[in-house]
């Protein structure tokens, strides 16, 4: 269906994420209609599209926390959907939108949950697990929060703790569902900086994003979904153009160039 999805440099040889013909329906409603999406290794890819376009569903399908009806998901050449679930949990981590709990839990304990796929199912955490969890907090830039109670954190701090929980899984593919939702601008930029560093360390990052300018400023590659189909994919410069954005979001759009960074800046409205 999506004839325009561009070939991604760097994805040759089966490296990175390669999802093809992924379909999923809720009852009679087709939420994902044969989606082909890629994310190059060691880069930050943005998954864009209006509300209800299927971004969250696609992320869950890739993580196989909600197994798609049809299609194939490969990562570094391996079949993610057919892989044993605990092994998959050591390769892929998903940071959900608004993950929350009513139970009292400390930040370190929350991050330690990410170690569960790395040890025998009924075993407790070890000193090594705690070291990895602390390191994950460090990579997310919030090591000092380890002893705090999750409930007392700000939205931005909590989001980064959830990132640390995913990093404690030591994933090669990190999926994030609107990681900057409800964050103030400083926290949004801090979260994206964390993702850029992870990508530089070789992690393949795919994040569903609402804010097109945040994607324009921080992503290497973007995939645009509309009504469960990919309408465009490729480098930011090629995809974030009026010809793609205007029909998908139904708004007038102009693309300028940031005077300092040289990255695209989108301006909306007549």
């Amino acid at each position, binding site marked *: 269906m999506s004839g325009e999805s561009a070939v991604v440099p760097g994805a040759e040889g089966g490296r990175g994420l390669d999802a093809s013909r992924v379909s999923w329906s809720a009852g009679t409603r087709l939420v994902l209609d044969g989606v082909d999406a890629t994310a190059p290794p060691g880069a930050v890819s943005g998954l864009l599209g209006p509300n209800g376009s299927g971004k969250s569903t696609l992320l*869950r399908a890739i*993580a*196989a*926390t*909600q197994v798609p009806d049809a299609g194939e998901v490969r990562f570094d050449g391996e079949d993610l959907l057919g892989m044993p*679930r*605990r*092994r*998959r*949990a*050591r390769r*892929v*981590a*998903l940071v*959900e939108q608004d*993950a*929350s*709990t*009513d*139970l*009292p*839990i*400390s*930040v*370190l*304990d*929350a991050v330690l*949950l*990410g170690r*569960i*796929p790395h*040890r025998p*199912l*009924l*075993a*407790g955490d070890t*000193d090594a697990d*705690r070291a990895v969890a602390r390191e994950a907090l460090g990579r997310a830039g919030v090591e000092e929060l*380890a*002893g*705090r*109670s999750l409930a007392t954190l700000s939205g931005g701090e909590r989001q980064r703790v959830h990132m640390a929980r995913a990093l404690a*899984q030591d994933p090669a593919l990190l999926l994030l569902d609107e990681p900057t939702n409800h964050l103030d601008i400083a926290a949004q930029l801090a979260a994206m900086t964390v993702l850029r560093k992870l990508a530089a360390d070789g992690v393949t990052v795919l994040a569903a994003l609402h804010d097109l300018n945040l994607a324009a400023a921080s992503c290497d590659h973007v995939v645009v979904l509309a009504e469960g189909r990919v309408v465009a994919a490729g480098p930011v410069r090629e995809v974030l153009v009026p010809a793609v954005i205007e029909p998908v979001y139904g708004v007038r759009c102009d693309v300028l160039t940031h005077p300092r960074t040289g990255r695209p800046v989108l301006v909306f409205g007549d």
Partner: protein
Amino acid sequence: MRSLVAETSTAPSGERAPARRSPGNRRAGPWWLAGASLALVLSVVVAVTIGPADLTWGDVWRSIATHVGLGGPLGLEPLPLLQDGMVWQLRLPRVLTAAAVGAGLAICGAVMQSLTRNPLADPYLLGLSSGASLGAVLVLVLGVSVLLPVAAFGGAVLALVAALALAGSLGAVTPTRTVLAGLAVSQLAAAATSFIIFWSATGDSYREILSWLMGSVAGATWTSVAIAGGAVLVLGTLLASTGSVLDAFTFGDTAAAGLGIAVNRTRWLLLVGVALLTGALVSVSGAIGFVGLILPHAVRLLTGARHRVLLPLAALLGGSFLVWADTLARTIFAPRELPVGILTAAIGAPVFALILWRGRRAL
């Protein structure tokens, strides 16, 4: 005690983080468990000495020592027959049954709360206890020829399936829907139970069944100890060993699946385990409410939500709690006895209200 020594001696080589207060100070866990074990043993020993007939600690020990075959070697005189019967045939089975039932209900409540992410989940509130009661009454009154625990288990499973199916058919399974569905199932089972009793029970069986429906360990025998204790030791230990798996559900089903947990299979296995345990407990004590609700919440406040500590600690404290609740129930209006379920409800209903109030935005 041995494990406690081992834990403290290895602690210095572990993390060197400053011991800041947060939910679930992880070094405190073993201490809490050791303390709670001690409290349970002391509760049982002390509770046996309390009652209308004056028995001293010495009398209790003499009776127990005699029956386990230590009386001779220790050179103890056996107790007079009447007092010995009071310890060995009445109070000890009753206290031990209370301890086992309390421990089992606390584990059931904690597991259900974590699996359904519902702070109000409890075998009593979700109708499992009523279903088990109905199954048991069918056997007691109508003489349906299956074993009492089996009937109680069947009732508990049917009630659980009915409550979850009803909650699920309404849409997303929210805490409110689950509790309301449990209420509906519970009321239906209670109505059926009342009808059977009203229609068939005669004379003395009325009072017996009534006290049993309210939840009581007054009639406990060594058979009750064997059923409840065995169920707690086997099923309770199995459920309590799944701590890490339950931890994975902290942020919901998708998060658990993302950690490599087979969510549906795990949920059903654990819920069937809970239904089995509830069935065994209800078959000896009737439906005692709120123990499974109160204890896990209290323990989370003490040690945080990590299940490897939460489950055993809730079990140990649940045992002590029901031992003392039952001691109070049989002494407060002595010589008349209350079914202990009345007392746990009197304590538990306000706690339930408090949890509702604290979690009001989630409902």
